[in-house]
């Protein structure tokens, strides 16, 4: 089964890192095939940021995301660019603190930035909350694989913070917040 996951937000949120972690979880720890790509502009901070992961049981030939079935959207601009015309059966996780519109497909609002700031004290882990939510809301990657991939990728000394963020995200993803 081929899954195409699209991440979008603004530069500095860790949009590309999120895709790298997800791809790593699938390819290394879930023993699936994964390809990660991105589109980026000249900005290092701010500006629209997009990344994507394809996860498949078979080798991935065409490496670009065409028609994603899973979206992780972390900014209003990102929603406007990628979130408006999704396929009907897609699933979208959106950061309900930063995205004001809602899509026509299934969606779950995750208050990732607020939770990161208030409960965990570090806004920077909002993307990890979104990744955790992905394991709560979908089966695209296992929670165990994601945890290992996060531990591989985050700076030393922040492992505990990031795992707490992932677990909190997992809980938020499981609750059906569709309104």
């Amino acid at each position, binding site marked *: 089964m081929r899954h195409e996951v699209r991440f979008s937000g603004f530069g500095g949120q860790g949009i590309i890192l999120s895709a790298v972690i997800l791809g790593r979880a699938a390819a290394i720890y879930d023993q699936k095939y994964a390809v*990660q790509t991105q589109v980026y502009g000249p900005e290092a901070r701010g500006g629209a940021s997009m990344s994507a992961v394809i996860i498949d049981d078979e080798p991935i030939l065409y490496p670009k995301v065409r028609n994603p079935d899973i979206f992780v959207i972390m900014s209003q601009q990102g929603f406007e660019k990628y979130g408006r015309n999704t396929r009907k059966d897609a699933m979208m996780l959106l950061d309900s603190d930063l995205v004001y519109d809602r899509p026509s497909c299934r969606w779950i609002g995750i208050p990732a930035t607020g939770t990161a700031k208030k409960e965990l004290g570090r806004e920077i882990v909002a993307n990890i909350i979104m990744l955790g939510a992905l394991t709560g809301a979908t089966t695209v990657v296992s929670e165990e694989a994601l945890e290992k991939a996060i531990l591989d990728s985050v700076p030393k000394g922040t492992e505990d913070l990031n795992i707490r963020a992932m677990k909190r995200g997992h809980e938020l993803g499981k609750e059906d917040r569709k309104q």
Partner: protein
Amino acid sequence: MQGNIASAEGALAAGCNFFAGYPITPSTEIAEHMAARLPKRKGACFIQMEDEIASMAAIIGAAWTGARAMTATSGPGFSLMMENIGYAVMSETPCVIVNVQRGGPSTGQPTMAAQGDMMQVRFGSHGDYSIIALCPSSVQECFDLTAKAFNLADQFRTPVFLMADEVIGHMRERIDLPDEVMVIRPRPLPEGVLPFTPVDNGVPGFASFGTGRRIPVTGLTHNEQGYPDTTNPARHESLVRRLVSKIEDARHEIADFQVVNEDAAFIFVCYGAPVRTVQEVVDRRRVPDTGYLKLRIVWPFPEKLLQRFTNVRAFIVPEMNLGMISREIERHVQVPVIPIGKIGGELHTPEELIEAVHFAGGDA
């Protein structure tokens, strides 16, 4: 692992111990990775030069001390390297140049993919010459072909190019790292033989600086001793013909390719990122009666391969340029050649290639 990092790791596995470079999108990760890795290797050196002209010069200087030397760049930097690439050709200096192609001309599209330098790599420096250019279409091939580039450079005493593109350079896939890679070093310069006398299929032996052979190296037309001899037409002709033929004569022997569905009526010829779309269309049987020739070495062009497709009605050539290698194919075949040039920075979609097959007369 990312394609660019795989290129750097492939170089390291092949024993690369000298890297000179200058930051340029979308190749910079290679320099950054080498900057982290080379200082930890005994006797190895990473140096960030003042520009790409200097980077190319520095790897040539390093290569003459016996180093396995490499640089990495993209369009604008590649243009700056051209004069010294010609020097490397003329002085028969083994070295590896990675070009992660982006949209041009000029500064163009720094963050978008292209294959617009495929003619420049072949003909970009002045004068007649030939080179070897490899094109990876996966992260695994970034590793494998970079390692291989060092061997070809040493074997043929020539600059060898890894012509990647932004899609492959920035893509991440899982790769299998071999325990060790094959390493072929240059044939040593035999005692009593002049430094530019061909000893092996047109290729001279190599002795590095500081080993007592006292070799005068010049970019001028030179005799077998290395002494300039610039006004003798016969000398120039025999030297330049040898530089070309040592590579062109080996084009079928070193050809690196994959053929799928040899008997099909519609054959894609592809290299680099578009290979992936071709595989999606052909391997997944999205359209009938199609096959492909995937080239991992594009230059020297192995034209005899085109003759194996005896049922072919048309060659379809998807490239991220306005048709460069398609012209090379055109001059070797009788059937129609359909270039599918795509520029703007995005890879061909499967639908675009299926449409091309229909255009060529294939069934839906």
